[in-house]
């Protein structure tokens, strides 16, 4: 069904745009038909979601631009995460507000906890003087009636690095490119879907249609993303129906990264150096942009995505590699062209799902499965998974794995660990940093949220064989054919 109706929500609207753009791109009629798409999707005459159909159509037009990889508006900054200006509903700008629930009680807890003298008792209720308020939130916590509400914009609240502000005149959100780590937390947080990410989907479809050899590299978060019984084998069959020439599991890259990171950590430990992981691009961006003096502490081992891409290109230099995962920061990782051999393009599982829909491909459980990575590589996608894999690789090689690792689950914990490291007070020797809480499996590019995917994922991972990391690499990878380090 092309036209949207009142039963649609922000997820189904976003998916519908991606699906229609994918359909037209496969037909080769995108340039010709994209202008008409907003009219087909929002036929009118009554508006369903916004003030009028003209605004609804403009939002669709901006979403189409992002699905094509363009910035939604006229400004062409390089950020992956972009604000759809027409969709930004200008949330209230005051952070804390006193509501009707205020009983004007005698304890005056809100007033007594306020260190900035910002609260006065008016005739009907307490009042917050915005000129004095520092937005500490003490009054909000103190009120026994929950009469004070926190109206911080959801995008701003979600941003772990304070990259979000807004235009004073219009109230429309701005993202500070210098601060943004591309984690995508704000894209999930906005209730109006006014923040999204640029897509490489049309580029990938164009290259498939041009007859190039395009190889898909599905990330280890894949199991569970497409429902019960959809193994990597079932997923690979669907991916090949989309026109990809081959499929290589990035879990194998997890094994590669774990094995080489284990060696790097062992050496660093001897030299008395502390290291942080390099596989989460949003975490690496956090170091690069907010703790630049710690860049020498980032492990030089490349990410699982880069490892597998290099492996594929070592065999066939003509291959075009496309990472498919739950991550939007990966789209940014590949823009660093100083890093040789990385994936050429990145798609999200959500975009992949929309491509399946556009091509009427229904995934079904297949008898034939593929397994390229060990269970340790597959579990890279969850918080603590990288650490477990590195320790396993150490154990396999040296018999012991006696290192102290701090597992940071989510951007807030990452930030804390980096502050400690910077101050020279980090108790651990190594840091595993994942910007998404729960790890990649909770990434903003998922087709299915972690909670919905969990049960199916556990059942699918239970089917994996018990091969060890080094055994897997020695049997299946020509380790001399490519480098596992940055330059």
């Amino acid at each position, binding site marked *: 069904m092309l036209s949207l109706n009142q039963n649609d929500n922000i997820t189904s609207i976003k998916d519908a745009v991606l699906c229609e753009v994918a359909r037209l791109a496969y037909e080769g009629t995108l340039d010709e038909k994209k202008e008409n798409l907003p009219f087909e999707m929002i036929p009118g005459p009554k508006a369903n979601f916004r003030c009028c159909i003209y605004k609804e159509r403009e939002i669709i037009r901006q979403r189409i631009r992002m699905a*094509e990889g363009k910035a939604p508006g006229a400004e062409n900054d390089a950020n992956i995460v972009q604000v759809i200006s027409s969709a930004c509903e200008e949330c209230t700008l005051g952070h804390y507000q006193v509501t009707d629930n205020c009983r004007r009680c005698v304890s005056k807890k809100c007033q007594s906890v306020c260190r900035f003298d910002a609260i006065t008792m008016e005739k009907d209720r307490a009042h917050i003087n915005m000129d004095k308020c520092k937005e500490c939130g003490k009054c909000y916590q103190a009120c026994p009636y929950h009469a004070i509400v926190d109206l911080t914009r959801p995008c701003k609240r979600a941003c772990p690095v304070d990259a979000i502000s807004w235009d004073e005149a219009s109230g429309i959100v701005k993202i500070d490119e210098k601060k943004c780590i591309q984690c995508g937390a704000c894209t999930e947080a906005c209730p109006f879907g006014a923040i999204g990410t640029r897509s490489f989907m049309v580029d990938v479809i164009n290259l498939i249609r041009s007859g190039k050899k395009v190889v898909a590299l599905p990330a280890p978060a894949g199991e569970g993303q497409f429902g019960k019984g959809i193994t990597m084998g079932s997923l690979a069959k669907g991916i090949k129906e989309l026109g990809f020439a081959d499929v290589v599991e990035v879990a194998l890259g997890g094994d590669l990264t774990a094995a080489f990171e284990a060696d790097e950590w062992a050496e660093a430990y001897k030299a008395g150096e502390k290291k942080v992981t390099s596989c989460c691009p949003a975490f690496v961006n956090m170091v690069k942009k907010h703790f630049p003096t710690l860049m020498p502490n980032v492990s030089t081992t490349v990410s699982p995505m880069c490892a597998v891409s290099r492996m594929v290109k070592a065999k066939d230099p003509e291959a*075009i590699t496309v990472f498919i995962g739950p991550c939007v920061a990966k789209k940014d990782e*590949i823009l*660093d*062209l100083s890093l040789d051999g990385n994936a*050429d393009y990145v798609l999200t599982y959500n975009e992949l799902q929309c491509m399946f829909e556009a091509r009427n491909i229904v995934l079904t459980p297949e008898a034939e499965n593929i397994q390229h990575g060990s269970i340790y590589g597959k579990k890279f996608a969850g918080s603590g998974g990288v650490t477990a894999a590195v320790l396993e690789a150490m154990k396999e090689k040296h018999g012991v794995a006696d290192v102290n690792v701090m597992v940071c689950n989510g951007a807030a914990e990452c930030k804390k660990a980096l502050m400690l490291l910077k101050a020279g007070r980090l108790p651990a020797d190594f840091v595993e940093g994942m910007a998404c809480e729960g790890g990649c499996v909770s990434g903003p590019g998922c087709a299915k949220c972690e909670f919905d995917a969990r049960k199916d994922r556990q059942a699918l991972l239970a089917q994996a064989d018990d091969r060890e990391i080094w055994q897997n690499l020695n049997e299946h990878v020509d380790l001399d054919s490519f480098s596992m380090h940055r330059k």
Partner: protein
Amino acid sequence: MTVTICIGSSCHLKGSRDVVARLQSLISENGLDSQVQLSGSFCNGRCDQGVVVTIEGDDQIYSVLPETTEMFFQNEILPRLAG
């Protein structure tokens, strides 16, 4: 200095990956790794001028092909570093 190369599908088919590889080796050969960063960009719709290359602080679009990469490096990148 950041040099940005379009990695969209149209520029890819015109050889953007070769342009990047040649620039990478020219930068290394000249010992400029710490001075020149290569960055990719999404398609910005100027496909007729591909491979679209831009230099930080300059609005001009340079149409660079694998066979003209060295000339671009000599004429546009080196003089900027010397200046």
